[in-house]
């Protein structure tokens, strides 16, 4: 039997506006002392009122335009009511039935909607206590919702990377998964035919593209195994364990949550003119796909175009002298400096793990068979992908005290 993967994404992007979505507090909350960037509005104090950030709305619409969306000339905010300690008002200001942008398309995948909302606070669990940091409360958040039209993790990987490049090209967010300014939620189910499965598994809190790919692959095969033995996977939210590469159950959803959406009475509805939208469209930067096309038209191979267009610095250098020689030079230089962006700490963590899991190899290295280090590096690479080899060797030596 051939199984059909049904895969879609909800992607949250924190905008890098100066101020929060509905108040004047700074939006950049990374590494700030807890509760140092708060006010009555983002704390949800009695009597406080939200005033929308015009820049954030403009940026959300620009992202929608870059994704080929239709822009709703009439739009509004809605309240999404639910209880959680990191949500000080008891509702999140979001958009329900009139999102700013709808029906887009990226790399052949349909985008259902792009809408504007606000981020929540952060819960910090310390021993038996839970502390709340509201610096993130009210930070502008754009949600991109795709249709479930991805076939596999390669498909989605290309899409997500392209989306990140577009957002970075627009300069509206750092779009950094490790820092949480880009957050993904994958919805996965498997069908024996073209029909839509009657369950859906959500995977949350995965913070790199590579792990998303791994999580999706693991989850698809987990579900197929269940289906092959006549079981139906349960509707639930699952997390991803980086060390094992497996997903695990976090929360089982009994039924759909009733958020009691209704129009946000504190913010008047918006009305945009087509002229305003066209003005914003004209301000869009050259998007990655346009750059690629441009580079191919300038005589570069698809591969070269892809590499050069993805790096703004390289692109700028190339465009100053757009010749084949420039391209060769840039690509060769790049290959000479394959720099891994995996943090040293992460490598150190995996090295320790691999060392303790391979006592036999470690013993043989200690006994003088130094080429066996290659076997360890192979395993580390398998876990982390492109790593900085000399750095990794150095870490292995340190940990093994060679």
């Amino acid at each position: 039997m051939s199984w059909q993967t049904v895969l879609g994404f909800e992607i949250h992007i924190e905008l890098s506006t100066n101020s929060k979505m509905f108040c004047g507090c700074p939006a950049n909350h990374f590494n700030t002392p807890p509760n140092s960037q708060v006010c009555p509005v983002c704390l949800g104090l009695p009597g406080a009122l939200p005033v929308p950030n015009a820049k954030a709305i403009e940026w959300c619409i620009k992202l929608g335009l870059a994704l080929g969306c239709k822009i709703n000339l009439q739009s509004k905010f809605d309240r999404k009511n639910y209880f959680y300690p990191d949500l000080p008002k008891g509702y999140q200001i979001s958009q329900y039935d009139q999102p700013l942008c709808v029906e887009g398309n990226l790399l052949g995948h349909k985008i259902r909607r792009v809408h504007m909302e606000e981020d929540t606070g952060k819960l910090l669990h310390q021993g038996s206590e839970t502390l709340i940091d509201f610096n993130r409360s009210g930070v502008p958040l754009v949600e991109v919702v795709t249709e479930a039209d991805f076939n596999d993790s390669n498909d989605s990987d290309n899409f997500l990377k392209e989306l990140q490049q577009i957002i970075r090209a627009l300069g509206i967010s750092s779009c950094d998964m490790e820092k949480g300014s880009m957050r993904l939620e994958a919805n996965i189910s498997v069908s024996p035919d073209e029909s839509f499965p009657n369950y859906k598994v959500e995977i949350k809190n995965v913070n790199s593209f590579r792990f998303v790919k791994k999580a999706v692959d693991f989850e698809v095969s987990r579900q197929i195994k269940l289906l092959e033995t006549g079981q139906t996977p349960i509707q639930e939210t699952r997390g991803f364990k980086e060390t094992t590469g497996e997903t695990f159950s976090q929360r089982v959803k009994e039924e759909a949550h009733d958020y009691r959406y209704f129009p946000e009475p504190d913010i008047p509805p918006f009305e945009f003119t087509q002229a305003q939208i066209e003005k914003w469209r004209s301000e869009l930067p050259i998007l990655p796909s346009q750059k690629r096309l441009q580079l191919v038209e300038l005589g570069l191979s698809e591969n070269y175009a892809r590499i050069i267009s993805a790096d703004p610095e390289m692109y700028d250098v190339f465009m100053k002298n757009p010749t084949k020689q420039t391209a060769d030079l840039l690509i060769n230089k790049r290959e000479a400096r394959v720099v891994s962006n995996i943090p040293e700490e992460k490598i150190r963590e995996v090295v320790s793990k691999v060392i303790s899991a391979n006592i036999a190899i470690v013993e043989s290295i200690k006994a003088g068979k130094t080429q066996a280090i290659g076997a360890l590096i192979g395993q580390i690479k398998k876990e982390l992908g492109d790593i900085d080899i000399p750095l990794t060797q150095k870490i292995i030596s340190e940990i093994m005290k060679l």
Partner: protein
Amino acid sequence: MNLDLSISELAKKYRSGVVTPEDVLNECLENIEKNNPKLNIFITLRDRQELLAEARNVKFETLLSGIPYVLKDAYVTKDIRTTSASNVLNNYIPDYDATVVKKLRDAGAILIGKTNMDAWGHGGSSENTDFGPVKNPWDVSRVAGGSSGGAAVAVSARMAMFAIGEDTGGSIRNPAGWCGISGLKVTYGRVSRYGAIAYASSLDSVGPMAKNVEDLSLILELIAGQDKLDATSSPTEVPVYSKNLNLDLKNIKIGIPLEPDQAIKDALVKLKELGAEIMEVSLPMLKYAVPTYYLLAPSETSSNLGRYDGIRFGQDRSNFTQESMRRIIIGTYALSAGYYDAYYKKAQQARTKIIEDYNTAFEKCDVIVMPVAPTVATKLGELISDPVKNMLADLYMVTTNIAGIPSLAIPCGFEEGVPVGFQIQGPMFSEELLFKIGHQYQQVTDWHKAKPNI
């Protein structure tokens, strides 16, 4: 008594030096000491020495400089306890001031204290409060009306020169009518709501309560205007209302949608004598006003009160009263999946119809005159024990909140020995016209000068 004067008369005396803000403040405090125990107006009274010090330092910059006022306890005040008359917030001390409080302080007005009300604005009698019911100064066996009951009584019983109330479905006009003072429900967006503890955000309005229309006009011109902290506040220019109160009523058409009772008939005679033309108009949607209001307001309140979970401030939710819980539950139900279309959405559609009704009526007439309430002030316990009767008491007031239009309530006589009032409702941002008509009426009548003998 200086407290019988109008604001402009008192301001004149301040400037000529015959009366000082300290004198007036002392009069207020004396009356409070004497009658507050009987009437139960104040939830929080500011410290006497602090008040007197403030009164001694007044600079006479506006007509409200040195004028003492009270604030419904629905507005947050920095460092002054703010309860919304609920035990949920009975120990809550806000960290910031509402915009209306800030504007009045900037104008030099002196805040005496925070007044009792129906908790969260949930009620029309000021009995739904955790601080004991407010009594009517004309007859202490009766209620003051609500929800801004304490504010109305403070003005009526001469404990302050004016009050700031809050009107979501009649909460300024109802107690004004039952206590014999004047009150204005402003156009939605005319006065900033920032710092007003939300009951139902699309209906809430901040407005003045005082002895007469001229005073109201003076206060409104100082508190109205766009506020960058309230996205629903309007950029519509604020006229100098108090300078434009003289009007020949000759070209004014007054629409009457209901068979008027005796007090209103008398008022209409006066308005006719002043030159106004009286005509019948119809508001067919009036019969749907109460059900519409009692879906929209509870829906919004169920969301607005969600934050009072006792985690970050205040007490837990078991402290909500029966009446508040009833509204929260009705609203939660009306917004729930499967019921939304039949209730909340229907009510929104009715809202559009009510707006259309008014638009049609205002094509024929300039303003509409209606009673404030269907009865005089009820006996204590009568409304709080009968939730349906309680809702129906709002019949003539809720349409203006639903439509967003302004309405001026002024006294026009007595029935059963207690005051009754009427409303003058006008199109959006017609406050200037309402003031002119109300002021002209008060030039030829004395109802607004009557005060309770207490």
